[in-house]
């Protein structure tokens, strides 16, 4: 191996002085990548799951500082609780400092709202797998698109009602099934009904129950890339689930206009970390780990689906008995 000499510090846009003989310019690739990313834009697909009334729409609007939730898009539709779980997705183009993003919010009305909620995660599981399937079908085409449209669910925010006791069987069942196919970020919804002590003990209980049931939520320990990653993620794992409060109303507090919820006993400032953990959730989902969330979806959850799909025999066309063995042979040969 050989190394190149250290470059002289360069100001952007300055022409390389001829006397600088040791600078090659390999690090210019970072700028090239940034340019390409700005030109192409990003996609982000987030699903919200939880019983009705837990503030899912409000939280989405708060997170993305814009009316992105389904309800905001269809404000006049009479809100009724559907008889089964429905999957409704709504997309928006947003732009910030030249960075463009196609944000898709996937709502799941009807989840957990029936009397009998058995298997209410199944339509959700099916939806998630259908997105993987759509991507896979596009990927294996002969003539495929330059950029395959990514509708895969990158992140599923699961809303836990602020009972303060423990997880309900529905919560456990849902997360147990879904954590295997998608990144789950559990949050304690409407956390302004819990005192700080209640909140902490609730969180501890939840973490314990997740551990006891073998549920791996994001960020999953096994996907930490290196020691630095692990350190950062350990801190996050000690804080989840984030206790959040959402709001799209602005109030005047100490001369500043901030998002909050005004009550008779005070105003809860959404972005104040002394009041609730919304800011941590926002930072995790958007400002620091968005790319990582997408990467885990792409290189782990999707790949797991793909392996399973390519290994099973297609139920649509009945196959003779030798096919399973041939698949084995195929995977060995390949």
């Amino acid at each position, binding site marked *: *191996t*050989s*190394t*190149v000499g*250290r*470059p002289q510090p360069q100001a952007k846009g300055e022409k390389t002085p*001829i*006397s600088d*003989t040791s*600078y*090659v*310019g*390999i*690090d*210019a690739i*970072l700028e*090239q*990548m*940034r*340019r*390409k*990313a700005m*030109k*192409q*834009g*990003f996609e982000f697909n987030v699903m919200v799951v939880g019983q009705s009334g837990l503030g899912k729409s409000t939280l989405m609007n708060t997170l*993305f*500082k*814009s*009316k*992105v939730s389904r309800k905001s898009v269809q404000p006049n539709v009479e809100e009724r609780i559907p008889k089964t779980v429905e999957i409704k997705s709504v*997309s*928006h*183009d*947003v*732009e*910030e400092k*030249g*960075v*463009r993003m*196609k944000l898709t919010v996937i709502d799941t009305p009807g989840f957990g709202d029936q009397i009998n909620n058995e298997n209410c995660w199944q339509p959700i599981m099916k939806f998630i797998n259908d997105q993987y399937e759509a991507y896979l079908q596009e990927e294996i085409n*002969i*003539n495929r698109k*330059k*950029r395959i*449209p990514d509708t895969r669910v990158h992140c599923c925010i699961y809303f836990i009602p602020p009972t303060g006791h423990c997880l309900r069987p529905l919560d456990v069942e849902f997360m147990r099934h879904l954590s295997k196919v998608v990144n789950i970020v559990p949050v304690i919804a409407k956390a302004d009904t819990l005192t700080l002590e209640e909140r902490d003990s609730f969180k501890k209980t939840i973490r314990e129950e997740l551990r006891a049931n073998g549920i791996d939520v994001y960020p999953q320990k096994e996907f930490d890339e290196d020691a630095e990653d692990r350190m950062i993620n350990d801190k996050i794992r000690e804080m989840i689930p984030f206790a959040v409060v959402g709001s799209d109303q602005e109030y005047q507090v100490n001369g500043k206009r901030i998002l909050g919820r005004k009550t008779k006993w005070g105003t809860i400032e959404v972005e104040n970390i002394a009041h609730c953990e919304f800011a941590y959730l*926002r*930072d995790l989902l*958007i*400002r*620091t780990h*968005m*790319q*990582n969330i997408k*990467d885990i979806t792409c290189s782990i959850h999707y790949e797991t689906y*793909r392996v399973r799909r390519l290994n099973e025999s*297609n139920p649509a066309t009945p*196959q003779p008995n030798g096919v399973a063995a041939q698949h084995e042979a195929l*995977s060995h040969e*390949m």
Partner: protein
Amino acid sequence: MVEGMGEGARGVPLSGHVGFDSMPDQLVNKSVNHGFCFNILCVGETGLGKSTLMDTLFNTKFEGEPTQHNQPGVTLKSNTYELQESNVRLKLTVVNTVGFGDQINKEDSYKSIVEFIDAQFEAYLQEELKIKRTLHSYHDTRIHACLYFIAPTGHSLKSLDLVTMKKLDSKVNIIPIIAKSDAISKSELAKFKIKITSELVSNGVQIYQFPTDDESVAEINSTMNSHLPFAVVGSTEEVKIGNKMVKARQYPWGTVQVENETHCDFVKLREMLIRVNMEDLREQTHTRHYELYRRCKLEEMGFKDTDPDSKPFSLQETYEAKRNEFMGELQKKEEEMRQMFVQRVKEKEAELKEAEKELHEKFDRLKKLHQDEKKKLEEKKKSLDDEVNTFKQKKTAAELLQNQAQQAGGSTTLKRDKERKN
């Protein structure tokens, strides 16, 4: 509108800072952690300064000895180096064509180059088709840029150059350069470049165009496009010019400074190849050249996409079908081999049976002989026995007669005896 994002998305204004503007940084950080890969193929006759140019471009001494001119064919030699500049780690692979242009018959020269490029595509395709795959940690060996070294004759392209570039232009990004261009005068160089460009155009050779769709680099790229092919000079030797040490080639009549843009286009090449378009070269390789290879390869193997109305053919299903076919053929071959084996065994058996039969016959013959002999002997024995019997009879008869004679003679003898006595 966000490019290529599909329809149905509406633009919404943001009422505050959300923070996803950090996404390009997140993406760049991830790439920095992973490191980058860049693979350059240098095609050109021996002695055109390919190795020196690589050394000069990357400011380092790559290993390697100058190759001899007596190679029997064209081979490709690739070397991978790990370079680092600030926080960027680059895995650079330089592939050299060894022996290109040295043979008397150069008809097949381009073949090993095409095969090499295809082999890298094939390796990637195999990885992509695997069931359990690790694409994000795959070491990409596909050629991102092909520097084609043109000999500084000053006249025109050689037919070998045209043929080779034509074969390569749909497989790799070609950047033609005039090597050792300090051998050409300025005026000759301008004419040479024009001639080369027009020959490339008239022969339909598609060389790599620096991209002009992004405003931030459109201008510089389109200017550079008009300077192709770049006339370069390479050197790792340093010469003192004024009070600076510069890379240069020193002649009695003057010094050619590598990084002096009035002397040669080296700086332009470095700018285009590394500092401005390295990422685009990688992207074109993946989205254009590799996709073309993949499409052709899969079609060759008999896969096809169906029209959007009917259910799309799953690659897996078609692969299964192909697999069945293949297994069927295998079985058939196995059957054939088995038949052949059975046949051979039969033949051998027949042979052995033949031999056995012969042995039996021999045995029978011998037995018969033996029996004949035995019979003869028995007959002889019988005749001998008969003789013996006859003899015995005779003997018995004779004895009887003797006895009778004796008795008569006995009386006779008695008489005789009596007579004697008297």
